[in-house]
């Protein structure tokens, strides 16, 4: 029964990919049912940008749903919400007027809420769902306010009319609308400082849902930003792009910094989603800066880089979440300090997780590297702007992106190394079992996709340039030379991951042959790891995740503000004998302390004050209503 639901979702995914690709390649399609809902009725339209995001939904949905058959096949709870979630996500990029969009958006959020609340007994799930609901509705308020402002100014609820009427708006109104829409969409995308719901909600949901939330749902926030910033409002002033680029750089660095000190496997991945959204926004922001300056070719390149990273992140983050789900399935824990040694008991999962780690750490020849390389190519050409202030913004973006990829590499050494390598740190990890075949198939398919997207940028980039061209309109600065090499702006940069992969494979083979020719010993002896003279090796000698991330904690202590807690219990007879040592080194969130707590504190203080007028007497309430009516009548 439940498996049937997941099969339906798979079918929806297949249709979404087919329809989405048709849209990407220029097939337009509209559907209008004016009587169905008020304010213009239901209206759907397919264009290249919508098609791209529709296909993206399919790319993540198919493996996630197949995986779910093995992961949650017998569980009926949440299947309806899951299918509804997938359908709503398919409708969002198709919506062509305010009402259709708002309904699809809200259905998506609601279905996601129920999926986060999948297991209310799990610690933290209720709070996660609550924070998610508050943040998503705060975002919705911003979105609706922005859209209503835009609708009132242009006199239409259809998106196509907004695009036509946008140049006639006053600058102030355009800025106001952009800020409201950006706040709503970026909150959904999980950009810092609107990210608080994300690391709570992703781990609470089942893993196939986390994969979709991270792989697709937060990307629909990016979709909205692209729609608002390029389509509905036309080309905006430079400061929009500067703001988006700086937000992106901040999100990417801070996201990965949080991930480094988190030892819950799924929370770590959730923080990396914040990071990757940041990388996408660096590309989008660069495009928004280039465009008003008239450098449309560079804007196109930056936008295509952002779209490529969107696609790549959907592939590798879905893969990593499914891998984390397999770990939870096999061991029953998400805490990295209790894992270890899984590579021997779960070889398939380990290999797939390694592929995903290499992809997210931007290691060549995997897909993450290609999109980061394209982003660098777009950023590095900013000298054509000839405006030192903007050039410095770009320099910060470049440094931020470089720092992010370095830290991401470090973080995935931790995530993979501590979870999968060396000796198991707990009974649960020692008795882990490999995931069933449907889960393995989904992970292998995504791992192959990650490698494929990395090896074949010459096939992907022209398609993405086609999608981006609909938003900026220019000739692309990218050429495909002899079918293998991407060449950017003439001789500025070139890359061929396929040739690189062949060269790397050759480099792997060469020492094998050379060692044979050099007469090297081919014998391998097995022995215990050297334990400084100790006879027995146990998992207690291993480096822990906490220890691994400690250098980062110390280097960035101004950001983490770590608080050390040490509790030692001595033997009652003598302080020379220690019975128990408890050591904790937690970090504090700047955003919760300095942003959310003051805001929430103010809100509840205002609410306490307002309680004074709440007497409980019906007569007084009637008097309030009368007074309000009078005021309204006078004002009208």
């Amino acid at each position, binding site marked *: 029964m439940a498996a049937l639901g997941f099969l339906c979702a798979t079918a929806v995914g297949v249709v979404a990919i087919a329809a989405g690709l048709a849209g990407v390649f220029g097939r337009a399609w509209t559907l209008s049912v004016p009587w169905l809902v008020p304010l213009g009725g239901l209206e759907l339209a397919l264009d290249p940008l919508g098609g791209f995001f529709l296909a993206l939904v399919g790319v993540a949905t198919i493996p996630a749903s197949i995986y779910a058959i093995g992961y949650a096949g017998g569980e009926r709870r949440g299947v309806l919400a899951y299918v509804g979630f997938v359908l709503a996500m398919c409708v969002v990029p198709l919506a062509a007027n305010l009402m259709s969009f708002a309904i699809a958006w809200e259905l998506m959020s609601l279905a996601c809420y129920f999926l986060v609340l999948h297991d209310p007994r799990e610690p933290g799930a209720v709070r996660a769902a609550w924070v998610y609901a508050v943040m998503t509705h705060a975002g919705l308020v911003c979105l609706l306010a922005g859209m209503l402002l835009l609708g009132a100014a242009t006199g239409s609820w259809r998106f196509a009319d907004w695009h036509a009427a946008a140049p006639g708006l006053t600058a102030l109104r355009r800025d106001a609308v952009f800020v409201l829409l950006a706040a709503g969409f970026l909150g959904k995308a999980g950009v810092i400082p609107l990210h608080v719901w994300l690391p709570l909600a992703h781990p609470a949901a089942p893993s196939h849902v986390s994969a979709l939330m991270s792989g697709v749902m937060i990307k629909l926030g990016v979709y909205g930003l692209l729609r608002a910033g390029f389509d509905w409002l036309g080309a905006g002033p430079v400061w929009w792009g500067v703001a988006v680029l700086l937000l992106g750089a901040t999100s990417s660095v801070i996201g990965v910094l949080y991930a480094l000190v988190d030892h819950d496997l799924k929370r770590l991945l959730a923080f990396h989603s914040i990071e990757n959204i940041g990388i996408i926004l660096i590309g989008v922001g660069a495009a928004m800066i280039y465009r008003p300056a008239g450098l449309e070719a560079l804007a196109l390149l930056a936008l295509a880089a952002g779209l490529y990273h969107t696609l790549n992140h959907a592939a590798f983050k879905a893969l990593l979440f499914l891998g984390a789900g397999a770990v939870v399935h096999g061991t029953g824990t998400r805490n990295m300090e209790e894992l270890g040694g899984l590579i*021997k008991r779960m070889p398939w999962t380990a290999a797939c997780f390694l592929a995903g780690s290499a992809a997210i750490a931007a*290691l060549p020849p995997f897909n993450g590297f290609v999109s980061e390389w394209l982003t660098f190519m777009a950023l590095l050409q900013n000298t054509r702007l000839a405006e030192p202030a903007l050039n410095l913004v770009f*320099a910060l973006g*470049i*440094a931020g992106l470089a720092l992010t990829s370095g830290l991401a590499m470090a973080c995935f050494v931790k995530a993979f190394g501590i979870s999968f390598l060396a000796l198991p740190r707990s009974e649960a990890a020692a008795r882990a079992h490999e995931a069933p075949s449907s889960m393995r198939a989904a992970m292998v398919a995504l791992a192959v996709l990650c490698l494929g997207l990395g090896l074949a940028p010459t096939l992907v980039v022209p398609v993405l340039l086609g999608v981006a061209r609909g938003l900026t309109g220019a000739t692309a600065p990218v050429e495909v030379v002899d079918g293998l090499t991407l060449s950017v702006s003439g001789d500025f940069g070139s890359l061929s991951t396929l040739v690189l992969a062949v060269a790397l494979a050759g480099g792997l083979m060469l020492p094998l042959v050379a060692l044979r020719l050099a007469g090297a010993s081919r014998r*391998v002896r097995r*022995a215990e790891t050297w334990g400084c003279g100790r006879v027995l090796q146990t998992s207690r*000698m291993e*480096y822990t995740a906490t220890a*691994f991330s400690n250098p980062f904690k110390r280097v960035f202590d101004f950001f983490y503000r770590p608080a050390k807690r040490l509790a030692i219990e001595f033997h009652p007879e003598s302080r020379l004998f220690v019975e128990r040592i408890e050591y904790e080194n937690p970090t504090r969130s700047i955003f919760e302390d300095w942003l959310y707590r003051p805001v929430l504190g103010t809100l509840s203080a205002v609410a306490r004050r307002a309680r004074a007028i709440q007497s409980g007497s019906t007569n007084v309430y009637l008097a309030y209503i009368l007074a309000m009516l009078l005021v309204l009548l006078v004002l009208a």
Partner: protein
Amino acid sequence: MIAGLATALAQVLVVGLGAPLLVGVLRTLKARLVGRRGPAPWQPYADLRKLLVKDAVVSTTTSWIFRVTPYVLVATMLVAAVIVPVLASRTGLPFAGIILLMYLFMLGTFFLALAGLDSGSAFGGMGSSRGVAVAALAEPTVILAVFALALRAETTNLGGIVERFASEPRLALDPAHLLAFAAFFIVMLAETGRLPVDNPATHLELTMIHGAMVLEYSGRHLALVEWAAAMKLFVFLALLANLFFPWGVSSLVEPVPVLLGLLALAGKLAVLTAALAVLETLMAKLRLFRVPELLAGSFALALLSVTAVFLVR
């Protein structure tokens, strides 16, 4: 095509065979500077041969990651040897971007750090943790220093940068150039595990990063790891020599200019090696948590270099 392949092969041979000699010369020089006689410069070859004939001892704790890593390290360095303009500016591969090169090094670091964790000993984990911390903090400096170069050469292709600076020598006298060189030099020390960041001569747990990660390796595996480390030093020094002082690098792939390129490279490497030896003799190892300050300093230099390019044009 054939000339390109021949150059690529020549570069691989020069880097692969020259790297142990470079390390040997560096050790001899350091020994002489402190008044010891030291081993002969070709001692590393003998060390490698000795390691190759020994059996490899592999811990029962480890997985395939541990056994694959030495090969991955060598593979990344061999590809790097093809990409970097060592003898000629345009080499075997049709693309040779500096960003690709940096990420290729990162691929090696990633696997080396995993292998360090794989043995399950505290030393390996400690080395991995420190190693990735240094690599991650060095990354922005590298990219910014590269950016400063790419800005003025208007390309990120290594061959293009070399040709541009070779054809317009006055570009190389710019303050931005010298700042970028200083930044890149400091990063080179961090990336290749030299003093004052890491101590290549000891196996003491207080000082070591690279040494800790590879502690479990033996026999031919250790030989490959050490060879790859030597090649990394060679490639970085060749980058410093040819990117910032591109004189003598051949733009043609013909025997005579390439041979001249080899001579020029030998001269430049001799100067850089001597400088490195003097520096390592004069300097003490920094405390681990002072290293980020050093890297921040080099980051500031790189940022200044980029700013100088923007403002002085």
